[in-house]
């Protein structure tokens, strides 16, 4: 058993870390304050080759595996979790899904622009009445000759109004339950597509979420991904890959919290010595480090397994669940170690704490991860 990353993976990690420090760190705090969409970061990530890095070179992608992408997302999230999630949704939920399920024509049409970042992709599954119960889709798609007519309301859509392409799930046959869901690629500029106002959020503030409103949107049959009724399977496959990305986001945030805590504990003096010399603080740091390493091992294993092919939903759910828990628990601890300063905007740990929370919610809540794990145990 070899736990070392390959030379290539190490280079990818080093590059992502350096990129994050150079390009994301100077703007992360300001972006969190203003909630402005980080287009600059997007273009820089595209130039660096992170956008579309897991797509096949045939379409201009980097040909990297999910493990390599995990390393990149972890490093980016260590500095700016908002920027990371935009990349994660684009690559894992959107572009890879088209590569996986698209026809050669569809891939040729969409992937080159998605690989270079010329187009931004989004994923639209959630509805006001279909969250954890994502099969309870109320959006509909009705076939009329050579096109479908889509109607419905999607909510909390990451990169909503900014993205060019939306992977939309809608019911083509209600009587079939989740086997009646179909996936479509919907372009932003289609007639009848509109967006709600950006949500005002606790964390990942520089990413944007809006409603996606579909009113009699005519979508050609060529835009249907997979067959009618494949939508739920497509969405779940996308989310398997996506959850590894969210695990990486959580892990990066947790690592940032630990790094900040170690630095602060060494430098903050109380009772005549650095608080790092207090055993109470040392124990916190030791637990943080141990949990983070355990989370990392679970996550890398899940990514590695997924790269070997096949579905490994249980291992992915475990990794996502644990990474998110570790991120939440230890960003709270990081604020505690920073005392009053930790509560202040000036110190980054309060942002880490706000950013960490979402990793327990989106792309399947912690409770849903437990459902997946338990159902595979009790099968």
């Amino acid at each position, binding site marked *: 058993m070899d736990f070392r990353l390959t030379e290539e993976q190490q*280079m990818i990690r080093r590059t992502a870390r350096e990129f994050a420090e150079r390009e994301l760190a100077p703007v992360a705090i300001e972006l969190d304050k203003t909630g402005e969409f980080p287009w600059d970061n997007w273009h820089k990530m595209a130039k660096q080759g992170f956008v579309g890095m897991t797509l096949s070179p045939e379409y201009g992608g980097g040909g990297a595996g999910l493990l390599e992408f995990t390393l990149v997302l972890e490093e980016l999230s260590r500095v700016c979790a908002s920027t990371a999630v935009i990349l994660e949704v684009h690559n894992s939920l959107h572009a890879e899904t088209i590569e996986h399920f698209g026809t050669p024509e569809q891939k040729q049409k969409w992937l080159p622009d998605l690989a270079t970042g010329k187009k931004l992709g989004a994923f639209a599954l959630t509805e006001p009445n279909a969250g954890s119960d994502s099969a309870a889709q109320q959006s509909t798609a009705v076939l009329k000759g050579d096109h479908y007519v889509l109607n419905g309301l999607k909510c909390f859509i990451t990169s909503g109004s900014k993205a060019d392409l939306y992977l939309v799930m809608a019911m083509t046959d209600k009587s079939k339950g989740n086997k009646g869901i179909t996936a479509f690629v919907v372009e932003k500029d289609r007639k009848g597509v509109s967006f709600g106002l950006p949500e005002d959020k606790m964390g990942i503030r520089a990413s944007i979420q809006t409603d996606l409103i579909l009113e009699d949107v005519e979508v050609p049959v060529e835009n249907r991904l997979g067959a009618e009724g494949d939508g739920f399977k497509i969405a779940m496959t996308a989310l398997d890959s996506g959850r590894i990305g969210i695990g990486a986001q959580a892990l990066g945030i947790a690592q940032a919290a630990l790094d900040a805590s170690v630095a602060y504990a060494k430098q903050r003096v109380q009772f005549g010595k650095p608080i790092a010399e207090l055993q109470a603080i040392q124990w916190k740091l030791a637990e943080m480090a141990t949990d983070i390493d355990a989370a990392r091992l679970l996550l890398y294993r899940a990514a590695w397994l997924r790269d070997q092919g096949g579905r490994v939903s249980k291992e992915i759910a475990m990794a996502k669940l644990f990474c998110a828990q570790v991120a939440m628990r230890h960003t709270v601890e990081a604020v505690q170690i920073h005392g009053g300063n930790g509560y202040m905007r000036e110190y980054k740990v309060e942002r880490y704490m706000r950013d960490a929370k979402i990793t327990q919610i989106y792309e399947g809540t912690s409770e849903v991860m437990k459902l997946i794990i338990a159902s595979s145990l009790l099968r």
Partner: protein
Amino acid sequence: MKVAVLVKHVPDTETRIQVKPGDKKINEEGVTYIISPFDEFAMEEALLLRERLGDVQITAVALGPQKATEALRTCLALGADDAILVSDPAFEGADAYVTAKALAAALKGGNYDLILAGKQAVDDDAAYVGTAVAEFLDLPVINLVTKLEVNKAAGTAVAARDLDGYSQVIEVKLPAVFTAQKGLNNPRLPALMGIMKAKKKEIRTLNAQALGLAPNELGAEGAKVEVKEMFVPSKARKNKVLTGAPAETAPELVKLLAEEAKVL
């Protein structure tokens, strides 16, 4: 055009250097290595030359243990076409003189129009190898370059150097050796695509025999200087406390920061 870039793999500048008592080299356990930052300027300049001039073949060259391939692999990821590792257990104990001699032997016959190196490596700070390579190859050398322009048709280059208080612009006939100073450019990071392609590119390894070097020219035997002792200095810092009214101490502090700490 052919450009050779000399790169050295050195301990990460953030590494805490440790020396085992009695040893004459650093303890390499747990040390992460990077490309010496001045060599990164040299590598970036080669890439910029290619962007400006088009047909430029870039070869990265390093002398060091097998581990130094990491530095070369990074150069390949950045866009070098191929790489040469000069490596032989017999180099153990080599000084900058031996290093330059071996690198010169590796470069000889390669018909490089430009040889680019960092002005010094940040581990031993000898600031010797670039110049000595030029000497061994009987080529002109321009040190501390902050600007470089190549006239391909004329076979010349014009380089600028920022010196203490003045600048110099020098024209030289190629081939020539240049050593890079901070300010020359802003080194890029390797693009993902470059990293993925790098593993398919070739790193040739040349040992002492392949370079035609005799045993007495290598390692400690061939070295012109000998390390007598190596240790980590004690950490006690000389603190200075300025007392007096802020209006008086502030200018004094600025002066100290500029002249003693040299951070301004």
